[in-house]
């Protein structure tokens, strides 16, 4: 391990004397993960809020399904998207396989249930507090959804960060639909997988550390935005 530590240091310095290829990989990682996070929040938050405020037969079943879908294996999602986007598949004519778009699609599918299930829980707790007020005002579903999303926004940040973490760390789906093609669809995690299979373990771990640093930077930015954003009216 001592050896390894010095090796790791070497790998890190090597990485950090960034060549453009490496910057490209980081950029693509962020682009894919942030896009997937954004899309899954768009879908997942509305779905989660809907389940939080609504009452209908089968709601409990939906919640169980959603919670179970948090266990969607990335490889399976990757295969599912692959089979659809493949030239032989129904959407093959779009020519999206092995593009960043395909990676974003796969990750969005993977992460949306996570956002929906977690935000459902957070917003249901909030809605329990608001329920009677909303009922008294005779608010419709859309108004209620908008209200809990807005009032729960600070708690939902953690949900979004969980989704981002899942997507930025994920390799199974993006490697299948992206193909880990250099200069085109290679992201941090697929690069880590590649170096691992080459036996360059210290380089792989070093890349992992860089990935974590990126995740840390994103999280710190979100936290500072959250702090500096006027919390006026929220307490």
């Amino acid at each position, binding site marked *: 391990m001592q050896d390894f530590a010095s090796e790791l240091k070497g790998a890190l310095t090597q990485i950090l004397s960034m060549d453009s290829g490496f910057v490209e990989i980081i950029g693509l990682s962020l682009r894919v993960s942030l896009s997937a996070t954004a899309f899954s929040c768009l879908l997942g938050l509305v779905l989660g809020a809907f389940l939080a405020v609504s009452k209908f037969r089968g709601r409990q079943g939906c919640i169980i399904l959603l919670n179970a879908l948090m266990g969607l294996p990335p490889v399976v999602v990757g295969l599912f998207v692959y089979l659809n986007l493949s030239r032989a598949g129904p959407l093959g004519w779009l020519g999206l396989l092995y593009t960043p778009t395909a990676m974003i699609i796969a990750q969005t599918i993977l992460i949306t249930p996570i956002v929906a299930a977690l935000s459902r829980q957070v917003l249901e707790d909030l809605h329990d*507090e*608001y329920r*009677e*007020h909303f*009922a*008294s*005002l*005779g*608010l*419709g579903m859309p*108004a209620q959804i908008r*209200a809990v999303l*807005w*009032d729960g926004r600070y708690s939902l940040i953690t949900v979004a960060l969980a989704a981002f973490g899942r997507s930025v760390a994920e390799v199974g789906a993006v490697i299948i639909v992206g193909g880990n093609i250099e200069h085109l669809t290679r992201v941090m995690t697929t690069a880590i997988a590649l170096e691992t299979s080459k036996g360059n373990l210290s380089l792989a771990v070093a890349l992992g550390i860089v990935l974590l640093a990126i995740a840390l930077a994103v999280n710190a930015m979100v936290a500072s935005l959250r702090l500096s954003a006027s*919390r*006026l*009216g*929220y*307490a």
Partner: protein
Amino acid sequence: MLERTGAMTGTVQRHALYCRGLVYQVGERRLIDGIDLDFLPFGISTIVGYNGAGKSLLLRLLHGLLEPSEGAVLWNGKPLSAKARHHQAMVFQKPVILRRTVLDNLRFALASRGIRDRKQALAALERVGLSGLESRPARLLSGGEKQRLALGQAIGCNPDVLFLDEATASLDPASVHAIEQIVLAASAEGTKVIMVTHDVGQARRLSDEVIFIDQGRILEQAPAGSFFASPSTRHAAAYLEGRLPETHQHPSQN
């Protein structure tokens, strides 16, 4: 005070609110235990009774927030609905405050009635004495300020029926007086008021009729004058005198 309403007999039908065989049961317990009530179509009806008698539950049932286990509430001859609630408003015993500013809380409530005018919201704040606090985070208000906010929301909606659940419980004496004036004014303008209070003085000052509820049952419904002069049940008499009925579990006096 009944004469106030003489001018508006034409609108009587509009506010007709009554319930039949109302039961609200949780598990084995019948918290509301078969209530038939016809409210005066105008003026202020006050519900009084011991803690846990079922006053708040009854208000919720009348407003349609709870589904009765048995029986029904009818307003203008029709069962309650979300749409009916657009013509009613309620101030809860424990106000629900959104994580927003005072003004945004009020505008949120008014928006549900299609009132989007900022000026109207500001006027409602003014009426309940919250001018100057518009931009405060509402959840940091003092207890009394929160209650005023809830009142402002309800009154700002210009409801046909106004439910008040101990709406002045944590107000200072001056504010209690001011709010009572607002409620009287609203009532005079045709709003049907159904309120709960433990302030016997307030009940005397405001009520047109009084309903005494005990253990989920109506024991007495009478014009205010006769109720306070000579309640017809032993229980109501005890309540007015601040005595505990012997049949009840209540704080031991040691």
